[in-house]
């Protein structure tokens, strides 16, 4: 049953979480605990932090995230096509070329618009 494949993966997931948490817990027990105000300050090359944690972000990050989202979904469509390639005729190849052309226009648009440049 497919589910048993994933039961093993589920056990591995729990085991990995345990494997990751164990040393941190052990460190909490073994490690020395000398709390001091200065030690728990945020490290900024020694200076005290000013202002809250927000930096003037560029829109680039958002644009890269959208580009990734759109091309991620493009690959989600490409995977089943590739898996079923031999039972699909030449016609499917033409359709897939059209699909990729439509999305390539998106990439060319972003490129020519200059949003991909990291100013």
């Amino acid at each position, binding site marked *: 049953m497919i589910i048993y494949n994933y039961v093993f993966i589920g056990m591995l997931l729990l085991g990995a979480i345990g494997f990751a948490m164990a*040393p941190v817990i052990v*460190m909490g027990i073994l490690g020395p605990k*000398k709390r001091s105000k200065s030690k728990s300050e945020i490290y900024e090359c020694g200076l005290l932090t000013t*202002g809250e944690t927000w930096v*003037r*972000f560029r829109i680039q990050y958002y644009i890269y995230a959208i580009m990734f989202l759109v091309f991620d979904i493009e690959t989600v469509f*490409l*995977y089943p096509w*590739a898996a079923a390639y031999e039972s699909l005729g030449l016609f499917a190849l033409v359709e897939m070329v059209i699909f*990729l052309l439509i999305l390539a226009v998106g990439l060319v648009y972003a490129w020519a618009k200059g949003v991909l440049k990291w100013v």
Partner: protein
Amino acid sequence: MNVATDWALPLVWAQQSELDSIPWLKWIIVLAVVFFGIFPGIVAYMVWGERKVAGRFQDRIGPNRVGPFGLLQPIADAIKLITKEDIVPRTADQWVHLLAPVMILVSAFLVLPVIPFGLGLAAVNPPSGLIYLIAVSSISALGIFLAGWSSRNKYSLLGAMRAVAQLVSYEVPQVMSVIPVILWTGSLSMVAIFDRQVEYGWFIFSPPGLLAFILLTIANIAEVNRTPFDLPEAESEIIAGYHTEYSGMRFGLFFLAEYLSVFAVSCLGTAVFLGGGTLPWPFTGEPVVTLGSGQGLLSLILVNLPLIGIFMAKVGLYVFLMFWIRCTLPRLRVDQLMSFAWKVMVPLSIINVFIAALWYEFVFRPGRPNYLLGWGVTAPLVLISVIVVLSIYKAQMKADLAASPTSRRRIATAN
């Protein structure tokens, strides 16, 4: 001859057997021994290997104090990290601060059960194994973001955003460069990919396969934030990037996660392109299979010993390639890094998908596979596309450089 499935290790839940009860004990043993014993050991000694190799490249010895040839160095590091004090900034978000490294490590761990180390040695063989693998490895981007955000440090947040932007940009070519493999095997399950390479030889021995392998390797290096793509956590850049506020074993987890994902990613590379566990010529496997014809554990080990050896050798070479690159290539600037992903890697991988479809027509189509014609057609196509894309990229870079003085002023006035 479908070698792998005949030797279904009880561990591999192929669909044939309608198992009602789950052998919990056996699974726990396998988990404890293989996944939380052997793999962390391999990873620890990869760290040691890297430091030794880096030492050799820079004409120094590398760790040799702790134990013979410094073999106990990883254990010493581990103990040092465990006994450190667990300093977490007061204003940091306590739970998310701990969750982030755990998330990255878990996403690296979850990749391993799917990879076929030998005949039927893939711990799990889900029918859509490859897309499961890609999905799990995409979770680490979120973990890195949370690490940067939870430590409430301006620079680590900025470093995390840049790291995620880079990861995200290089995940598209990574995901797309694997598509030719699915095209040729006709199924998404990793064991089927292994069987296909057993019959037809390694996938790297074809022009589109070679290009896809190169793209995958570059994307893999970027995916694990190693030089020349390790800008977000570069020491000289923004303090220490997103893991500034991590100390002691929490930082150890990051370190472990990075090397485990190096191992996982190189396993993916070998399993998918280098025909994990088989020798270059189509592996008929008659001699080995007859040797261990029984069903028991002993015969399984006998059959798989050479295969695992070959697999680990390939992984070792792959990892050595990464170490080598780390010691030689300089670090890329941010804008070069990002524009290289979107303007060279993504177009190339899209074009490569179609060249792979062409290769399929020549070689894998059930008729008489003629490799000569295949090479004759696809090799020039691959070369042309690489040259064209790189020249466009060069022209674009030159145009940007020419325009840059004015743009520098424009940026200055902009904000």
